[in-house]
């Protein structure tokens, strides 16, 4: 549905994205994940035709977005980072205007607007002026403007940023309801959002893709490791030194009050480590094993690899 080939964008000397390649298949919900300034919004803007790329190509349903801007834009509903809302309009008039901009045939406009209002639970506030709405409702209006043309693809850039936890969970429920109806690209730096809603994640950092896989595979391959959190009462430095000397494939790090050991899954190694600490009589008070890292840890691990600072 979306194919991105060798996409690069420079802002003067600064390279925003470099040689991106990825594909989003029909019906997929893909998380586009990266820290702030990684190039997510730039990529979304290029895919939606808001920005031109410095080089490379974006194909939407086989059509080049540069050569066929009108046809490809018709297929995409876009919610930018800041919802593009007009402060002098009421919700329903705004959606009618957006539908007209999206070239929805006149006879379908009322139906599409009703559908978008219903999908985002905005029917009760359809007659309210946009500036009178809360941030959560405004975000929903932003989502409904992306839906109003009934596009095949939804591109949502940071849809839950700045919302309170209740509003975040409401928007997430809404995103879940889109599964199977639309091809969704969700750009975010909030990992739990991707974990909760997406089938696949593309992780981007400093303008380059550093990982791309299903959430399950990312967890299995990159995080087929376990972490052990150890707290001792005495001789923490000695314990760290002795653990490091052990002939095991593991990394040992210490924080102010605990030792973190990262090693491949398996119980034998755990037994050796625990025996060692007991032998050292260091006053073992906590030995907590976390068998799988969550996406947040993978993300931090991947992005810190790329950016050691």
């Amino acid at each position, binding site marked *: 549905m979306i194919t991105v080939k060798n996409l690069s964008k420079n*802002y003067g000397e600064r390279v925003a994205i470099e040689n991106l390649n990825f594909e989003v298949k029909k019906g997929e919900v893909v998380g586009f994940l990266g820290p702030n300034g990684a190039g997510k919004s730039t990529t979304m*803007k290029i895919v*939606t*035709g*808001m*920005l*031109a790329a410095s080089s490379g190509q974006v194909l939407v349903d086989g059509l080049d977005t540069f050569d066929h*801007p*009108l*046809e490809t*834009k*018709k297929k*995409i509903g*876009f919610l*930018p980072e*800041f919802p*593009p*809302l*007009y*402060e*002098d*309009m009421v919700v329903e008039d705004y959606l009618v*205007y*957006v539908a*007209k*901009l*999206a*070239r929805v045939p006149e006879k379908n406009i009322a139906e599409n607007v009703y559908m978008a209002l219903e999908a985002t639970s905005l029917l009760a506030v359809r007659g309210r002026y946009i500036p009178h709405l809360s941030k959560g409702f405004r975000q929903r209006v932003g989502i409904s*403007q992306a839906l109003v043309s009934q596009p095949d693809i939804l591109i949502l850039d940071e849809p839950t940023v700045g919302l309170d936890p209740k509003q975040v969970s409401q928007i997430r429920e809404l995103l879940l309801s889109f599964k199977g109806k639309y091809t969704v690209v969700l750009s975010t730096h909030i990992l739990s959002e991707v974990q909760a809603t997406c089938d696949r994640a593309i992780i981007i950092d400093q303008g380059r893709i550093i990982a791309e896989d299903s959430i399950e595979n990312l967890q299995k391959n990159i995080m087929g490791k376990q972490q052990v959190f150890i707290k001792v009462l005495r001789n923490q430095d000695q314990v760290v030194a002795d653990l490091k000397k052990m002939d095991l494939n593991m990394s040992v790090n210490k924080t102010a009050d605990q030792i973190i050991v990262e090693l491949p899954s398996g119980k034998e190694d755990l037994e050796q480590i625990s025996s060692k600490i007991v032998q050292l009589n260091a006053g073992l008070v906590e030995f907590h094993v976390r068998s799988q890292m969550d996406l947040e840890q993978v993300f931090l691990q991947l992005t810190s690899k790329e950016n050691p600072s």
Partner: protein
Amino acid sequence: MKLALAIGRKEFLGIVKTPMFFSLMSVCSLMWSYNFIRSLLLFAGRSMNNMTEAVSGYEYNIHYAVFAGHLDFVNFILVVLIPALTMKLVAEEKKKETLGLLLTSPVTSAEITVGKFIGGYFSGLVVLLISLMFPGLALFLGDFPIGPLASSYIGLLLVTGLYTAVGLFFSSLTESPIVAVILGVCANIVFWNLGKELQQMSSEWMVKVFEQISLGVHFTHFLKGGVALSSIVYLLSLTALFVYFAERVIESSRWR
């Protein structure tokens, strides 16, 4: 074109459905009515005094004695007011990041620009309609040839278009509506006065060139009852040129 009209309608309502527009129109009406009635009474008094004498001259022709002053005043207001009405057309969209909606919709930059121009121009027409109220009432009360008045309003329709295009262009250049209005007013004043001061200091051919460029000179033709094709072509071309510039600026925002 249909989309341009939809954009134009939205922009027009966005301009005229504001307390600011109503306030500005009230102030304009007050100023125009004071000025118009004063000139009309002066003209009536002078005419009564000279009723028995065979007189001629501009001061005894209602068009020059009353309407010309009113039309000059209307034009002066338009020079300042139109940039104020058009200042938000693009600048506000950039500032509030709503331009992205237009750029990601299946709409061409030309449709966006023409739509914005239509919205701004029609709000200018509302101003002209209000200004027409005064000579209209005089026409209702008395009987006089309306030719020069009609040609003057054709001139006003054309310069309103130009002021709108200039305002739209400057609005597209900046994110600040205030900067847009200042630049727009300055540009209008320059266009208006281009031919005036140079007449004394430049060579003859320069004077001729600047006469052709000056809005003041062209508008005077309309005010005197003439509808010169050269003036119409000049004003329409200049309007189209500024709309084109605005379109280029909007299109270029995709490339920055």
